[in-house]
Every structure is written in structure tokens, then in C-alpha cells.
């Protein structure tokens, strides 16, 4: 007597599971230009590092003799792996199994790995492809008849015997919640939702969490797109909480999946998704790049790498980077490029809230979070979207102990009806609060304008420091806007009101220069722009020791405005 038959049974389940939704479903997935979940995992992780978990998970049916009658694999693949030699935990939706529908198997393997990522303190990656629940889960008749006819059927494997769909549990006609440890459970219990929420709630404070949208992602998986530190989608993918049929039913609107949630909606307009990938391979490359700047968890420092670049490099172009003409715009990415380690820039969320550039980079080998106003976009003003982007990015940096380097050129918070209607006042407060709460090394370089309350993004407390270039200017508001408001009567009474206005504006403009008065900028020092890199390197080296004493989760008390 041995356990050989049981092991053989298990091996059989595993073989079935590896077949995913069967050859036909896989062909359909490929025809759409999409990879299968197992191909995705292979592309993402280090060769031979994937250790799949719950390899026999799925909905199985056994006959009276205890023999396997049917098996439909769980529509998710879960496991542990390495990326660039560092351990991660991941899950991937399998669209070839009933469209990745959440019901196809038990939820436990997914809850378990999310939990484990937190406990083992390693990054957690979600490769999303699939819908949330289906109402067919509630319909025992449909399930008895072989599942959702709109979804690909389970694979037929001649050598594994006939396969039929699993029978439902519970009473026909009732919306039954299966028992927790029923192997053929089809919907998570209340406790599972709680466990998932607790694990996730902790996860964002503990380990990097990444979500990739690689197909049509709706329902709960769509919620996961927003529940992470970094999200990415391909141009052929889309995500939404409810798809076109639901929108049609609820709102009477006819929309396509693309109109609801393709990259132009989610990465440009809504900002829910950070980055766009040209291909799935590009998405995985960007995920690896993102993780390369972060520690595996908040108890570690970000990974320092031997710099190839000279810490004292002085880029000559910086002396003329800011045009002398105040209204002339410039490309701020060129300034960042001249300062950070060569080849180390990785922009996050480049299509959303574009008045603020957010980037991960390295300086002297230290991973840093770079913020920079882009004066080419909305005049560099903090729009509601730019505020939301700033808040999230500062939180990311603070959570993972990344020093923040801010290139400031901000005329203020965005004015106008559109900005007010979008709630600029609240989002301005929230961005300011995030900066105030941050306790990482924080260095601001005031390159040009620093006006109004928006200047708080150049943090002025804790161990933060501020340097200014000679082109810096500051005040409570830009002279061009403020003079007309404050001197209206005098201007209107003048023989030549326009000349009078320009004259007053010019007077205030000269006063706003950092060379005349420190104003709001109050820099530690006014520096030659070419000395920016050495100055930041010096600060990063000195503040590093303090940063290293502040490891662990960041406590956030109370509520943001």
C-alpha cells in the first residue's frame, strides 16, 4: 500500500491544468495578438525560476468511486519566481478558461499568494486578463447544462478521459454561497473578501504591487488595476468596472470596449493606468524596470547600484537651459537628463497630469523619485490631474524610502472654470499634505518660477533642502496676474492704462528675482546650474544615513484633506 494512486491522480489534475482552456481557446487568444498566461509568466520572470503554486486548483467532480469525472482548471495561475534575481510572487488571469471569469475555481490560491507576498515581503505582480464574476455563477441550470455558452468550453483531452463541466453546489434556484473548503466552490465567501481586503490593505504599505492590463479586464480585476503602485496596459487592452452590455443596460448608452477603457481613456484621461506598452514584451520590460528602482519591501533601502557616471559631472548645457525670455518654454526632461545618472530615467504616467513630470531615476547610484514641472503643459501650473499625480508619486517615494528630487518651475495652482469644477482646491490640499507627510530626503531645485501655495511642493520642513538657480523668481502670485487685481483703480485712471500696467508689472517682476530677495524660495544657496548634480549627490550621500534609520512602513495618521 502506498500513496501512488493519489499522486497519479494529482499528476493528472496538473496535466489537465497546464492545458489551460484547450487548443481552440489558446488559438483564439493568439489570434487576438495576445499571449497565454503561461507564456506571459515565462516572458516576465527569470528563466527556470517559476514555482507554480496550487498546480491542481480548479473545479473537479468525482464519481461515487472517488474517481475524477471532470475538471476545469482555475482561471488563474499563481506562483513564486525571480525577476532579475530577486524573488516576487505573481498571479495571472487565464482568459482561455471561461474568459478568465472569477468563478472558475476557488479564490483561495489567489488570496493565499497575495497574503504570502506580504508575509514574505516580496513584490506582488498581477497579470490581469479577464472579467469579474458572471451571473451564470448563480444559475445552476446553466451550469448543469455545461457552463456559460458564451465562454470557451473546457478542454477535451482524449487521453485524460471525457471532461464535463462541474455540477453546482447548493439548492437549484438559490443564490448559494458555497462552504469555505468545498473544493468546487464557485464564489468567495464573506471571510475571503475580508481576508483579501486585509492582505491588500497591508500590501500597498509593505511591498511593491504591480498590475498589468493585458486583455479585457472588468469587475474585481479592474478594481485591482487601481490597487497598486504601478499599472501598465497594452494598446490593445482595455479595462472598466462594467463592460458595454452593463453600460447599455444601466445608462442606455451604446459604447465600445475601447471607448470605455482603452489606453487613451485610462492612461491619458483618467490616469488610472500609469504607463502604456507597445507590446506585452514591452509591458514586462517596463515592470522589471519599475521594480529595479524599488526595494523588495519597505523594511529595506532602495537598491543602490555602482554608478557608471561621474558624481561631479557638470553639464555645460545647464547654464543656458532656462531661456532668458520669461515666456519661453523649455523641455524640462533635458534638464533632468543632464543631472541624473546617464540612461537611468524611467518616466511614470507621462500622458496624464502632464504639467508635472514624474520619473524614477538614479543619481550617484541611489534610486530617486524625480518631480519636475513642465512649463510646456498648462504653463506648468498644478492642474487637478497634476496634483493627483504628485500626491500618488510622493506617496510612492515616501513608502519605499526613495529620496525626492524636485525641479520647481510653477506659476501656481491652475485657475479657471475647468480647474475649479474638477475640484482643484481639494486636490491642491491633498498634494500639499502628501509632501508635508513625506519623511524621505527631499531636495528642490528652483529653476524658475515658484509662486503661490503651489510652492509647498518644494518641501520646506524636516531634512529637506532647497537650492535656487539665478533664474529663480518667487512670490505669492505671478506679477502678471496680481498687478491687475491689486492696482486696478490706479491702472484704469492712468492716461495709458496698458503702459501703466506693464510698468507696474515690470517693477514687481524685477523684485521677484531670487537675486533681489529670497521671497518664498528661501534657498539654502543660489547655485550655478552646472553645479546641480554635485549638489544633489552631496545631499543624497549625507541624508542617506538618516533615511536608513527610517525603514519600515510609514504611519499615516488621520485623513488627507
Amino acid at each position: 500500500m502506498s500513496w501512488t494512486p493519489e499522486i497519479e491522480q494529482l499528476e493528472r489534475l496538473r496535466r489537465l491544468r497546464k492545458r489551460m482552456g484547450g487548443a481552440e481557446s489558446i488559438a483564439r487568444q493568439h489570434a487576438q495578438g495576445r499571449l497565454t498566461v503561461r507564456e506571459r509568466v515565462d516572458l516576465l520572470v527569470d528563466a527556470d525560476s517559476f514555482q507554480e503554486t496550487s498546480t491542481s486548483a480548479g473545479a473537479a467532480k468525482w464519481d461515487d468511486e472517488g474517481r475524477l469525472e471532470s475538471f476545469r482548471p482555475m482561471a488563474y495561475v499563481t506562483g513564486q519566481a525571480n525577476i532579475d534575481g530577486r524573488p516576487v510572487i505573481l498571479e495571472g488571469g487565464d482568459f482561455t478558461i471561461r474568459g478568465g471569469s472569477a468563478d472558475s475555481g476557488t479564490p483561495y490560491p489567489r488570496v493565499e499568494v497575495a497574503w504570502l507576498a506580504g508575509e514574505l515581503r516580496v513584490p506582488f505582480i498581477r497579470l490581469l486578463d479577464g472579467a469579474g464574476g458572471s451571473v451564470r455563477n448563480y444559475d445552476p441550470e446553466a451550469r448543469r447544462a455545461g457552463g456559460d455558452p458564451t465562454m470557451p468550453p473546457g478542454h477535451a483531452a482524449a487521453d485524460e478521459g471525457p471532461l464535463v463541466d462541474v455540477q453546482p453546489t447548493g439548492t437549484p434556484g438559490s443564490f448559494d454561497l458555497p462552504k469555505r473548503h468545498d473544493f468546487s466552490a464557485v464564489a468567495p465567501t464573506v471571510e475571503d473578501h475580508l481576508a483579501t481586503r486585509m492582505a491588500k490593505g497591508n500590501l500597498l504599505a509593505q511591498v511593491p504591487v504591480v498590475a498589468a492590463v493585458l486583455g479585457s479586464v472588468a469587475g474585481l480585476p479592474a478594481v485591482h488595476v487601481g490597487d497598486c503602485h504601478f499599472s501598465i496596459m497594452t494598446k490593445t487592452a482595455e479595462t472598466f468596472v462594467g463592460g458595454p452590455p452593463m453600460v447599455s443596460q444601466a445608462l442606455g448608452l451604446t459604447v465600445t470596449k475601447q471607448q470605455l477603457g482603452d489606453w487613451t481613456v485610462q492612461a491619458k484621461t483618467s490616469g488610472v493606468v500609469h504607463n502604456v506598452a507597445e507590446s506585452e514584451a514591452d509591458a514586462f520590460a517596463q515592470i522589471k524596470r519599475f521594480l529595479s528602482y524599488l526595494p523588495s519591501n519597505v523594511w529595506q533601502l532602495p537598491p543602490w547600484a555602482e554608478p557608471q557616471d561621474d558624481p561631479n559631472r557638470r553639464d555645460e548645457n545647464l547654464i543656458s537651459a532656462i531661456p532668458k525670455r520669461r515666456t519661453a518654454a523649455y523641455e524640462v526632461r533635458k534638464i533632468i537628463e543632464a543631472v541624473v545618472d546617464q540612461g537611468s530615467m524611467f518616466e511614470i504616467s507621462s500622458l496624464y497630469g502632464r504639467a508635472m513630470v514624474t520619473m524614477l531615476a538614479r543619481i550617484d547610484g541611489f534610486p530617486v523619485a524625480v518631480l519636475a514641472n513642465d512649463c510646456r503643459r498648462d504653463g506648468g501650473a498644478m492642474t487637478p490631474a497634476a496634483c493627483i499625480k504628485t500626491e500618488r508619486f510622493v506617496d510612492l517615494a515616501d513608502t519605499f524610502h526613495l529620496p525626492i528630487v524636485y525641479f520647481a518651475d510653477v506659476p501656481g495652482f491652475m485657475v479657471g472654470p475647468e480647474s475649479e469644477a474638477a475640484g482643484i482646491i481639494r486636490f491642491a490640499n491633498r498634494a500639499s499634505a502628501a509632501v508635508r507627510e513625506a519623511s524621505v530626503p527631499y531636495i528642490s531645485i528652483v529653476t524658475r518660477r515658484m509662486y503661490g501655495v503651489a510652492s509647498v511642493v518644494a518641501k520646506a520642513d524636516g531634512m529637506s533642502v532647497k537650492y535656487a538657480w539665478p533664474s529663480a523668481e518667487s512670490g505669492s502670485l505671478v506679477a502678471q496676474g496680481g498687478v491687475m487685481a491689486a492696482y486696478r483703480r490706479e491702472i484704469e485712471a492712468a492716461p495709458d492704462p496698458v503702459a501703466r500696467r506693464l510698468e507696474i508689472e515690470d517693477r514687481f517682476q524685477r523684485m521677484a528675482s531670487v537675486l533681489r530677495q529670497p521671497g518664498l524660495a528661501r534657498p539654502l544657496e543660489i547655485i550655478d546650474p552646472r553645479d546641480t548634480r554635485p549638489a544633489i549627490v552631496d545631499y543624497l550621500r549625507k541624508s542617506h544615513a538618516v533615511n536608513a534609520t527610517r525603514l519600515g512602513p510609514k504611519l499615516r495618521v488621520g485623513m488627507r484633506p
Partner: protein
Amino acid sequence: MEVKSEMKAIVSKIEVSAGAQVAADDVLMILESMKMEIPVPAPMAGRVRSIAVTEGASVEEDEVLVVLDLS
């Protein structure tokens, strides 16, 4: 190759004319948005085949500004 506007703006000043040879980074035109003058550089060297806008015109994001023949 089409050089497109990266943003909604007004065409403030056109710096080149059809037929002109340009080097990479040469300023093709200046756009104005939110009181800022935004130079539009040539993405690479080439000859200006045509200019699709006029000074004072409003342009939308992704609208074609200049067509270049690459050299």
C-alpha cells in the same frame, strides 16, 4: 514625416518655409499655450515639404503642423 502638435495651442510664429533644409532640433515654429511660448523642434534633419497651419491658428493635440522629408 509628420510633425504633430503635442498640445492644444495657438500657432504664434512659423520659423521655416516650404522647401527649407532643417537640421535636427532646429525650431520649426513657436506655439503659444497658457502664455508660454513653446518651440517645436525638428525631430530629425530633413527638408520641409509643407506647412499645415498658419500663424494665429488654433491647433489641437496631435494635429499635423509640418510635413518633413527626411534626408
